[in-house]
């Protein structure tokens, strides 16, 4: 078997194992929550009615049996129907996922566009200068102010003075890209602050540590221009830790959009999941968490592939 094929096989097997573990954990967790589906749906109803509802959805069977049934259907691609709306869960997520992916993608893009230049620049210009001082301030602020605070401030300001942005209405990207951006940029910005801080600090440290490497001194000793040294040697080598942090950050965003989605009434999976948990809509929560876990695994695989492209030393070591 070729090393690539074996590597892929190992990755797929470990991904399946991870997903199974997540499935068991989340199944256990939502059923351990106080208050079952029928309690939340019909709190005042007599016991017979509750038993009837529980029986209808198979909630009266042992947990292991319920899990087995869910797993059997999930493997065949059937994530079940929402207990509340009776709609197939997969279709609901397919409708909402693009919205969350869009604001998460925008937030990541903003984090990279702001964080990388500021981080690299402040890494290059040493310690006691204006640029690093400013960018450390920006980074510290961005990381320490929670997104719901920034979100609330943005909501307040832009509800009073619209200034081109719209709040509380969501136009799908396919319908009207401009109108979509008017609604998507503010929540994306609120989400991106943490990312800006993370990317900035990581890019800064990576730049400083690459600058201390022998091959940078050797390049200077060969008479390369400072700009050439940065472009050819510093950026590429400093990119590796930045990719790691962006992969972690985007994975976090898939769950981390919840608060911002609630604040800005964005119809993404975050809001859907929150209501799923509140209503004890087991199939929705189960599917949502599985979806997020799958995304996380995919992002990590993508990051690993990017490392290998940037740093040939890692390419050979991944199969082991």
């Amino acid at each position: 078997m070729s090393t690539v094929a074996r590597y892929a096989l190992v990755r797929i097997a470990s991904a399946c194992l991870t997903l199974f573990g997540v499935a068991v954990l989340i199944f256990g967790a939502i059923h351990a929550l106080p208050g079952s589906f029928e309690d939340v749906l019909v709190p005042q109803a007599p016991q017979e009615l509750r038993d009837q509802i529980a029986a209808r959805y198979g909630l009266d069977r042992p947990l292991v049996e319920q899990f087995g049934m869910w797993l059997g259907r999930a493997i065949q691609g059937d994530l079940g129907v929402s207990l509340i709306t009776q709609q197939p869960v997969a279709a609901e997520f397919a409708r909402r996922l693009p919205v969350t992916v869009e604001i998460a993608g925008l937030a990541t893009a903003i984090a990279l566009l702001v964080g990388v230049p500021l981080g690299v620049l402040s890494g290059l210009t040493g310690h006691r200068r204006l640029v690093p001082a400013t960018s450390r301030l920006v980074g510290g602020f961005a990381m320490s102010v929670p997104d719901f605070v920034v979100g609330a401030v943005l909501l307040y300001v832009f509800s009073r003075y619209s200034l081109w942005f719209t709040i509380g209405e969501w136009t799908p990207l396919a319908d009207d890209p401009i109108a979509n951006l008017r609604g998507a940029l503010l929540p994306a910005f609120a989400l991106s602050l943490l990312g800006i801080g993370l990317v900035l600090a990581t890019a800064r440290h990576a730049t400083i540590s690459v600058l201390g490497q022998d091959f940078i001194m050797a390049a200077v000793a060969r008479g390369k221009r400072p700009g050439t040294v940065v472009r050819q040697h510093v950026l590429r080598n400093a990119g590796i830790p930045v990719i790691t942090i962006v992969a972690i950050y985007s994975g976090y965003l898939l769950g981390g959009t919840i608060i911002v989605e609630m604040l800005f009434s964005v119809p993404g999976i975050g809001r859907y999941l929150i209501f799923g948990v509140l209503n004890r809509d087991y199939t929705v929560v189960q599917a949502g968490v599985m979806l997020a876990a799958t995304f996380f695994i995919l992002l990590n695989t993508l990051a690993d592939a990017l490392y290998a492209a940037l740093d040939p030393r890692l390419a050979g070591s991944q199969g082991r």
Partner: protein
Amino acid sequence: MNALVAISDLVVDFRTRQGPVRALDGASLAVREGEKVGLVGESGSGKSTLAMALGRLLPPNAEWGSGELMVAGVSVRDLEGAALRRLRSHTLGYVFQDPIGTLDPTMRVARQLAAVMEAGAGAADVSSLLADVGLQDHHRIARSYPHELSGGMAQRVSIAMALAANPKLIVADEPTASLDASIRGQILDLLVSLCAAHGTALVLLSHDLRAIAHCCDRVAVMYGGRTVEVGATAEVFAEPVHPYTEALLRAAPGQERLGGRIEPIPGLPPILTGRAEGCAFEPRCRHRIDACALARPESSEIAARQVICHRAEERRPAAP
């Protein structure tokens, strides 16, 4: 032959948290075109500082004091911008201790070589350069990343890079210290024969006195930031005038007679904080007299050598 390098009374301090540290305390050295000069001395004697000063490659906390450093007729300390880059890229070539670390880990060898060659150099030029440094398997090596090379191969590549622009002087800072003992000789011979073939001068820093004796026309012994004895290698090693040279030779393995002992030099090299008012070697010297601690010895010419020792005249070697 003309003087390619003329260093006279060069003083360099490093600013540190504990105050200034004097790395060069009036070092003097001349290197003629095509000449091979060895620099020896314990760690901390100022060898590397002198070598890096030649290309103005001292770290930012270095402060140039008095004295002159001329390379190819220009004063290095006044060089800036394009003129400095031209000195580094066309007049000087550096070979460092850790060959793999001085190559960018993310770039193939061929690309790194092409970057130091004249614009328009193609794959054939890269191959012939690699063949020149004794890499027969040059197709494979050109496509390799640095981590795929052995230390010896990587050092051959570094030598090829240093020679690519046909410099006037190669500065080699412990070029074989990190290599297997079995290939040190090969690498040194390669360096020396290539310099001879191109008419390139060589400044070789090493702890390995035998290597210096084998490769270099002249040797400069450094102690406490000064060049305490400079002369023809064979003569200096056969009949050292400066007590430090004598002690260094006795402490070196490979020089002792059968049944003889290696005699380590007692004490530690000094860390100077300013101009030494006496002889820096005085506390460790077995030939010291009262004047050594009180008066700073100046350079005197003894038997066609420059020696910095109060007792140089009495220690004049017997005429051949």
